[in-house]
């Protein structure tokens, strides 16, 4: 087992990495706007709306993502809906990302000091303008670092999509492992691929965190 072979393994996992990044992008692209809507609905005056929103968020956060994946991929065929691996992964990951992001966005909105709303009030801004021009810009500043953290976690979680045969890194690694029987170097290669994305991304989050909190 030489280093060249090992780098060969890493290279074989890269198409899987592209799919993992794709799945992360799709689930955040759909999940984050959904989360903003949910964060606004969760305090809605109508009890039914509130309950449905809370239910959606609690299921998304309370279920293992693995189970959520299986509900779509293995569960829906029972009622004659047969989604593809990509569709199941998209739905499950979007649900999960939206649920976690809702909590982040909600607490960010809440952490904008009350005086800001009052100041907007005394300037004669209506509720919508207050939210758009005063609360949201400040809340997004607070929300960006934890949302980036969530993105990194979602990227790591794409490894789970291997169980429903979505061709990401672990799917490729498992296949390589079973064909070469070199499980240890192969899974080390997979670990390196994930760490290679996650470590720089985490460093970026830390930098952003420092920069964004400078004026708070």
């Amino acid at each position: 087992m030489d280093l060249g072979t090992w780098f060969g393994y890493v290279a074989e996992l890269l198409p899987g990495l592209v799919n993992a990044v794709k799945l992360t992008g799709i689930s955040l692209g759909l999940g984050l706007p959904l989360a903003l809507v949910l964060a606004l609905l969760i305090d809605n005056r109508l009890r039914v709306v509130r309950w449905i929103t809370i239910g959606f968020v609690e299921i998304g956060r309370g279920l293992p993502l693995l189970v959520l994946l299986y509900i779509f991929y293995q569960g829906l065929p029972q009622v004659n809906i047969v989604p593809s691996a990509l569709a199941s992964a998209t739905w499950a990951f979007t649900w999960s990302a939206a649920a976690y992001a809702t909590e982040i966005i909600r607490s960010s909105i809440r952490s904008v000091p009350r005086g800001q709303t009052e100041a907007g009030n005394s300037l004669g801004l209506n509720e919508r303008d207050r939210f758009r021009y005063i609360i949201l810009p400040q809340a997004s500043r607070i929300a960006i670092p934890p949302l980036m953290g969530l993105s990194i976690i979602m990227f790591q979680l794409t490894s789970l999509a291997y169980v429903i045969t979505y061709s990401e890194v672990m799917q490729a690694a498992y296949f390589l492992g079973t064909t070469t029987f070199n499980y240890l170097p192969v899974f080390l290669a997979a670990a390196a691929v994930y760490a290679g994305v996650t470590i720089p991304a985490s460093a970026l989050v830390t930098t952003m965190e420092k920069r964004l909190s400078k004026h708070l």
Partner: protein
Amino acid sequence: MFGYIIQGLMWTVMITVASFLLGSIFGIAVAGARVSSSRIVRICARIWVDVIRSVPPLVWLFLVYFGLAELGIRLTSLVAAILTFSVIASAYLGEIYRGGLAAIGRGQIEAAQSLGLGRVDLFVRIVAPQVFRTVSPSMVTYGIGLMKDSALASTIGVVELTFRANQVAQNTGEGLSAFLIVGLIYLAFSVPLGIWARHSDARASQKYQVG
């Protein structure tokens, strides 16, 4: 079907509780190393924690189960799962402890030292109780996460909840019923504990709020 699936709860709980207990003990060592007076120990601990957290749990699980076997260390799937999740938990819980440690006023430690308390007494009577109080909501939240992570053990063949639901799905085609049952069992644990953690977190921060 329900009877078959519910038997998996024992395995899920076993993995969760064992990993949580082992992780919370090893976590103390991790937190200690993170705040050690030796720079080398601090750096090593930092790297250890960062490496563990930057690789998905599923990859660690496969490394421990399939990778170690290649080196001649053959673990049963249950042992591999508990070992993997304990090590991961020690990194996360260590960071949680460190956060709690930072929240203790330096004056507390100085006061105890000026009273002549030894290192052991300082830790057991002054530091540990205060840290535990501040971090217990975060620990519960992590414990819930651990229960959800334990579902990964199904991929290496531990016959816990998710594994059994998967089997039912493949053998009978009644996947939706099976996974809804399993989903409700997970929610029955995670939702009440989550409510408690948030409630006590809010209470704790209210209690210690200045002004």
